[in-house]
């Protein structure tokens, strides 16, 4: 049984998908010969050749725009944006075409494609290398948005994303690319998109997060000790959101705290808060709390840990919500 890091699990998912489906091809900057700046595609060009693993010129719009064309023709392209901060160069393609083709053509031309991008802070990098802007994609009708937080979920979700008949934005938490190894039996799982996971059952409060904030969230839940019973939910898919699981959990606990590193305004916390207000109002014993990045530009790394939700901030929100 192999022990894989999250980034190795991404690599494994790509490899398995390419093995089982010759229409799966990869394109992106530095993904071939050098194996990607995070080594997510390491060894794949050697295995599958330069026709299926394309080192492209430096042009995100071209990468996504051409991936659209390939998908229109019948391939299943998996495009890599080197960092989510450079996906804006392709944003017009994503908003104007990736998200719309199926609907525009009344289903004649679906776009089974995946756009992978590492996102998030805490890695002491330059500007544009640390943001979390998942809300842009979640806000865009027609896209699915997936953010794994563990190696086996990364593997199972990416395989599902590549098999999905619709375009998926697959955001990879680079901060935890290598922070934990997990044993993955056999070829690993193939998940279903749209399913959240209860990673720790509890009775008194539902603590919700995803991606790179999961370790912080779990630490905070652990710090609350045995006196409190906290249920922790990893969203895994931000769109379509697993509303049923969230509502069921909060109907049981009556309290919810949402954690994300993206800015607060119109983030996932806002959406979940509205959802719970609509569907679980009478169960709520306290306002839904949000522990988020601030509504400022992600500071350069000297101050990034003041921006990112910390265990202490999450613990504070848990205490406030429990004692409301």
């Amino acid at each position, binding site marked *: 049984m192999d022990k894989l890091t999250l980034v190795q699990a991404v690599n494994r998912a790509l490899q398995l998908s390419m093995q089982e489906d010759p229409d799966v091809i990869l394109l992106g900057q530095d993904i071939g010969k050098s194996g990607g700046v995070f080594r997510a595609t390491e060894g794949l060009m050697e295995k599958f050749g330069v026709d299926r693993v394309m080192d492209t010129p*430096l042009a995100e*719009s071209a990468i996504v725009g051409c991936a659209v064309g390939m998908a229109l023709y019948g391939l299943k392209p998996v495009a890599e944006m080197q960092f989510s901060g450079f996906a804006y160069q392709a944003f017009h393609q994503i908003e104007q075409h990736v998200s719309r083709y199926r609907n525009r053509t009344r289903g004649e031309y679906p776009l089974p494609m995946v756009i992978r991008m590492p996102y998030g802070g*805490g890695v002491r990098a330059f500007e544009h290398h640390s943001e979390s802007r998942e809300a842009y994609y979640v806000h865009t009708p027609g896209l699915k948005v997936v953010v794994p937080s563990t190696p086996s979920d990364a593997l199972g979700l990416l395989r599902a994303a590549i098999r999905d008949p619709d375009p998926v934005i697959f955001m990879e938490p680079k901060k935890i690319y290598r922070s934990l190894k997990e044993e993955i039996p056999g070829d690993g799982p193939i998940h279903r998109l749209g399913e959240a996971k209860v990673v720790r059952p509890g009775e008194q409060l539902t603590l919700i997060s995803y991606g790179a904030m999961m370790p912080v969230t779990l630490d905070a839940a652990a710090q609350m000790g045995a006196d409190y019973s906290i249920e922790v939910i990893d969203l895994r898919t931000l769109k379509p959101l697993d509303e049923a699981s969230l509502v069921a959990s909060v109907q049981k606990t009556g309290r919810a705290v949402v954690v994300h590193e993206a800015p607060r305004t119109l983030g996932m916390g806002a959406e979940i808060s509205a959802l719970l207000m609509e569907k679980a109002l009478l169960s709520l014993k306290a306002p839904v709390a949000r522990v988020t990045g*601030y509504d400022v530009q992600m500071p350069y790394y000297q101050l*990034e840990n003041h921006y990112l939700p910390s265990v*202490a901030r999450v613990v504070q929100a848990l205490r406030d919500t429990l004692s409301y």
Partner: protein
Amino acid sequence: MPRRILESFEVSNLSILDPEGRADPQLEPSLPTAKLKQIFEDMLLLREFDVRAIAMQRQGRMGTYAPSTGQEAVQIAAGAALNPTDWVVPSFREQGLLLSRGVKASTMFLFFMGSEEGNRLPRKLRSLPYCVPCATQVLHAVGIGMAAKLKKDPVAVATFFGDGATSEGDFHEALNFAAVYQSPNVFLCQNNQWAISTPRSAQTRSATLAQKAIAYGFSGLQVDGNDVLAVYSAVDAAAKRAREGGGPSLLECMTYRLGVHTTSDDPGRYRPATELEAWIPKDPIDRFEKYLLAKGLLQSDDRARLTAEIGDRLKAAATEAEEICRNLTPDEMFTYMYADIPDFLRPQREEVLAQSIAIDGDGRAHG
């Protein structure tokens, strides 16, 4: 009617110094001694800046760093050919250019130490801070040029970018606008042959990057980018043309990234060692030193002495930068967001200030 040739084009390469540092007498620009010496010193400064920054990165005192070693001639000679009233719009590999424009070394260190204080470049320097998304800055330079033209100010606006950046749409849109509006721009490509792991040959099928200008209706020149005199002459001519209303030019400066793309990169994975070895003898500093030695403008021990002096200055600058880092306060992430802080942000700022917690390197806070 037969086919007729409507237009045909030539692309040329300019080189003045030979590998031994001998100048072509026909092309040698006449530069004052003080300027030649300043260029040499600024090149040494850039090389030392790399040495110190890479060392600090290894010691954990600096984040990711993008070195310029091997590219000193392009940056320094280009800076020297521009007037203080001209503008410069860099990418992220122009430490030397900015230092030569009067940006403090401590400021440059701060950028790589992860503080926005590294972008606090006094307006009077007419030098914009680093721009990380490839080619996006090229449009800003065109806009500045268009504005200067509207105001009838005789300034040139030089913008810098890499070979990889020429594949981005922004680059092409910028060149088109510059040509359409005849903006006073100098587009300076530091063609260091690589964009991370992508060689220049995989970036475009054009034989040169210089010829990209032709399709937009202006001229491009390829320049030996490891040749101080060639870069100086080319930028000088292009900037004069720009200031005098002659419109934009593209200069493709052929150079080589002798080191890593950034300190997170390992060129051993993709770059043949033989290629690197072939470029080492073309080192721009060695070449210019030979030229100055032959002219009697430099003594054989000057380089070592200057390097040591520069090293001391940079050491002090690094200490100053680290001191500034220690005194950063977290609420400053709110200070510059808007002219006035909106009400909805005030509680967020209060929260940051109220967090009386120690925050360690891996992002975990301890109450």
